[in-house]
């Protein structure tokens, strides 16, 4: 028996799995499909005939049809549209995989190269070198991957690699005196700065636009999840390798640390970005679910913490470490909120998770407000150090982001703005992160005299 709804549902799922369509696009295409079907039924066709013809018309339009036919499910329309597998997409995919393998080997070898000049990774003396430069070993390859994939113009290559080169020169040309606080800070902030730069390579020409940036935020979250999974795999492989070699009396630890781990990290990075880019749909359906499970849990935890703090009258004991802990709290809340936002359909009406998001943000803001008022006092009493200023700066930058989001949510609930405006605000705020990380990485050492 032919069931139109079932067929349309499965068609929708395949569009979704394709990953190139937003929910709105799919809804729009679906209403188009249904209009076409209705017209054909009115002119005397049966439902299944009308469905197949409408689909053929819609599908023929562009590469969509190729993508449907490729998918391996036994559906009525599949028999109808057995296009040959799109050879161009196939070729591109093969090229991407070659790039992943090649870049992994190059990045890993590049990481081993300093050892030839006596900078052993395990030596305490060369630790600083690796801390400062770690992101420069991998991120340029990630950027190159996207530039090649997007077929970027020469100008984009010059711009992005110019900034990479400049960053590399600057951090290495700066002197650093014990206890190396600013150098360490620079090593912490440079990866973020360069990741945002890599984002420009990912988005391409429209790097200032809302949609491109939102895609990049989503991509970052997904790549992160993939990276955690792949790294877990590498660790299991490492432990397993050591265990079986130990059974025959050979210590594989050195091999593991010096080769497997290094190449493994590079591979994890390259594979993650390849997967997050190519197989969007798998995690796309997965990340928002994780966010939706954990955002209520975080909310409960935060509200409990706040309640206990108020009831017992204890304010958080303020040390720099705790401020950093609160920075992490804000970053985590922001991550959760962003996962929910990025997976959201812009045209969807207000739903429970929007309120939950706002509640989460507001609670985090209150807790951070209490913590911040306590620490500002202590900071001023004990003098300024680069670490304190950096931790404080991070806190303010994140606070600004969350406060802005809360404000936008409020206006959105009052129907003063639509959701696009909220997203636009968030994507514009990326500029603040870019500026702040650049400031800490490049200007901080100068201000604090390279201590």
């Amino acid at each position, binding site marked *: 028996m032919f069931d139109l709804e079932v067929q349309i549902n499965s068609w929708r799922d395949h569009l979704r799995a394709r990953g190139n369509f937003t929910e709105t696009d799919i809804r*729009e295409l679906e*209403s188009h499909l249904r*209009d076409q079907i209705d017209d054909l039924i009115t002119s005397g066709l049966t439902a299944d005939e009308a469905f197949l013809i409408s689909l053929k018309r819609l599908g023929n*339009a*562009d590469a969509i049809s190729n993508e449907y036919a490729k998918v391996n499910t036994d559906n009525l329309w599949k028999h109808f549209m057995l296009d040959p597998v799109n050879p161009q997409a196939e070729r591109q995919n093969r090229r991407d995989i070659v790039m992943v393998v090649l870049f992994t080997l190059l990045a890993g070898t590049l990481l081993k190269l300093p050892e030839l000049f006596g900078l052993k990774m395990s030596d305490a003396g060369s630790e600083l070198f690796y801390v400062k430069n770690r992101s420069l070993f991998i991120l340029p390859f990630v950027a190159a991957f996207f530039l090649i994939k997007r077929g970027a113009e020469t100008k984009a290559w010059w711009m992005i690699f110019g900034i990479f080169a400049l960053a590399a020169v600057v951090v290495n040309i700066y002197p650093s005196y014990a206890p190396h606080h600013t150098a360490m800070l620079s090593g912490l902030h440079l990866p973020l700065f360069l990741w945002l730069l890599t984002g420009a390579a990912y988005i391409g020409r429209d790097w200032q636009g809302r949609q491109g940036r939102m895609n990049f935020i989503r991509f970052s979250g997904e790549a992160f999840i993939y990276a955690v999974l792949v790294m877990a795999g590498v660790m299991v492989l490492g432990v397993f390798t050591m265990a079986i070699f130990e059974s025959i009396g050979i210590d594989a630890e050195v091999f593991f640390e010096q080769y497997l781990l290094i190449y493994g990290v590079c591979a994890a990075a390259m594979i993650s970005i390849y997967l997050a880019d190519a197989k969007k749909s798998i995690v796309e359906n997965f990340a928002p679910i994780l966010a939706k499970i954990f955002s209520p849990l975080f909310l409960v935890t935060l509200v409990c913490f706040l309640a206990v703090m108020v009831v017992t009258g204890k304010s958080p004991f303020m040390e720099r470490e705790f401020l950093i802990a609160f920075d992490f709290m804000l970053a985590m809340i922001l991550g959760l909120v962003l996962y929910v936002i990025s997976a959201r359909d812009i045209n969807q009406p207000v739903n429970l998770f929007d309120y939950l998001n706002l509640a989460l943000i507001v609670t985090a803001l209150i807790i951070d407000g209490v913590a911040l008022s306590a620490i500002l006092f202590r900071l001023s009493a004990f003098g300024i150090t680069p670490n304190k200023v950096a931790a404080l700066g991070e806190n303010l930058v994140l606070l600004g982001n969350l406060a802005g989001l809360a404000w936008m949510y409020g206006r959105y609930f009052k129907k003063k703005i639509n959701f696009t405006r909220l997203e636009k605000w968030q994507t514009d705020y990326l500029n603040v992160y870019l500026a702040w990380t650049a400031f800490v990485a490049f200007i901080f050492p100068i201000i604090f005299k390279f201590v």
Partner: protein
Amino acid sequence: MNVSKELIAASATPLLLAILKAGDSYGYAIIKRVKEMSNNELIWSEGMLYPVLHRLEEQGLIESYWYKSEAGRQRKYYRIKERGLQELEIQRKQWEVVVAALAKTWSEGTIHKEG
């Protein structure tokens, strides 16, 4: 007659804006309207129409909203904005220049043949 891809692409924006100027509409209806207006000569594909619509929306020339028809179907309607009207006016002038020039060369061509 098959109108070339390039020509269809070039004329898509002014045609779309002109259709939307006459009233809000949605993708399926727009394709039908273009077909009708051109006596079945211009067949737009969905793969071309929707990206163009989304691009125009991104550029702020048109805006979209969801609307439920009497039959209960949600459709994404597009509405022309002030900037779209201005753009249409500019494009109209450009096309008039092209059409006028073409008309002139063609009429000159026939004169030569006669003479």
